[in-house]
């Protein structure tokens, strides 16, 4: 049984026709929105209305709509992915809002994530950081017998928890410095914790940090807003591990920095 009463909402949405165009907030009134809709479905309804009135639909990123792809974004009332913890925008539902609410919707704001159009941003900086070293380049061949390469359970769990990062960029969006440290630390940690990542450990962290700096992300001031905003609940203990890995690479490793 769906809820009987719809929500009437006021949306203030950032509209920007192109990367270098001037943007502005535009206000839209939404009538009778079902509380069972997801946030993105609500935006779909808005876009249907805009098409009918011959206004350009709002551009926003989305793909799987089941919280695993990392494509959706949106700063909703000043919070990355909206008010819920451990939730992506696509998994946020309108029942979280009340009738008569005003909802301010902005794109991720970071110099390294330029706005493409409206609420869609270019997050290719993350891809370039991964390309710089976030991989294992040894040829592993076929999958080995399950117990050939023993990995302790606590290490597996930590690596898996870091690998939960979906690369959405909420950490950058929520950080007061637009720092990418939580993302980079998750990508460094998931490999640093496993034997497969060992051979390229030092090279990986130094190259990924260098690329992160080159992209123009800010530095980490340990405010931990990233951790609270992360839909995959990646822990800031990974940032400490990144710092450790970096120091280890600099001080101990024979690989050139």
């Amino acid at each position, binding site marked *: 049984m769906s809820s009987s009463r719809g929500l009437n909402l006021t949306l203030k949405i950032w509209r920007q026709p192109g990367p270098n165009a001037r943007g502005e907030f535009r206000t839209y009134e939404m009538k009778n929105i079902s509380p069972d809709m997801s946030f993105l479905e609500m935006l779909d309804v808005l876009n249907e209305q805009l098409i009918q009135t011959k206004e350009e639909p709002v551009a926003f990123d989305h793909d799987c709509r089941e919280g695993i792809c990392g494509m959706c974004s949106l700063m909703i*009332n*000043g919070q990355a992915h909206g008010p819920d913890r451990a939730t992506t925008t696509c998994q946020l539902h309108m029942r979280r809002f009340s009738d008569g609410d005003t909802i301010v919707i902005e794109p991720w704001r*970071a110099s390294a994530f330029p706005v493409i159009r409206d609420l869609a941003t270019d997050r290719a900086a993350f891809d370039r950081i991964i390309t710089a070293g976030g991989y294992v380049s040894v040829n592993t061949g076929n999958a080995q017998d399950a117990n050939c390469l023993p990995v302790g359970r606590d290490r597996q769990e930590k690596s898996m928890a870091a690998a939960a990062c979906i690369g959405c960029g909420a950490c950058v969006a*929520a950080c007061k410095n637009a720092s990418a440290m939580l993302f980079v630390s998750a990508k460094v940690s998931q490999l640093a914790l496993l034997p497969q990542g060992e051979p390229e450990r030092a090279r990986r962290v130094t190259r990924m940090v260098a690329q992160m700096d080159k992209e123009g992300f800010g*530095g980490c001031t340990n405010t931990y807003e990233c951790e609270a905003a992360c839909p995959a609940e990646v822990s800031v203990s990974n940032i400490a591990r990144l710092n450790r890995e970096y120091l280890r690479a*600099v001080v101990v490793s024979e690989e050139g920095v």
Partner: protein
Amino acid sequence: MIIQIKNDSAEKETTLRWLLNALSTSVGRKVVLAITGLLLCGFLVAHLAGNLLLYVGDGGKSYNEYAHALHEQAALLAVAEIGLFGLLIAHIVIALQVSSENRAARKVGYAVTRSKQEGRYAMEGYRPDTWMLVTGIIVLAFIILHLMDFKFEGRGEAFYKNADGSAVTPFEKAKNLLSTSNLITIVGYAVGSFALLAHLAHGFQSAFQTLGINHPKYTPLIKLVGLVFAIAIGVGFATFPLIWSMSH
């Protein structure tokens, strides 16, 4: 066929380049900020311990003896002063560099921001980590005033000379400068001490995270020690303008 063997001249010029390169990245610079900050914390402990001699009720005898003993070590004192100055300058220069880069990382800001950290919403805007640059600048102003007062003696003869023209004892000097009629010093020191408290409340525990020390066993302890340390140092120094000055 000549096989060219790459000589190692490229490696020779890298004697310390690797270190400089590493320290100039965002992570490396934060490490320098953390290490200089923690070393300066060590100085604060020594300085507060020395100042606490003002409370020994012997008319300033212990304090004067301590001050004389310190100043007799001219060579060591010079090394210590240059070292401290170096730490402070490194800490300030890197902090300014890091904060200007952090601002550049988000050129267009948000219309609305709201924290998602539990318990933080109520504290929004009042948490010490939001104010590190501001509290740091206030502490710097306090240090400059303090050096003007005590080291360079630039606040007028009356503070530093007896009626007969001879120099006052260190205890008398502190009494003259921290008198209720010298409001600049009283207010400046009180504000500076509390700004130091706020700065340390974030800085101390943050330095450990930057140095890679985050452990379920020790991190809660480090955070607690950091808070206690910040309060002890901040309140400790604030007692001189606020309590000691009134009792003299």
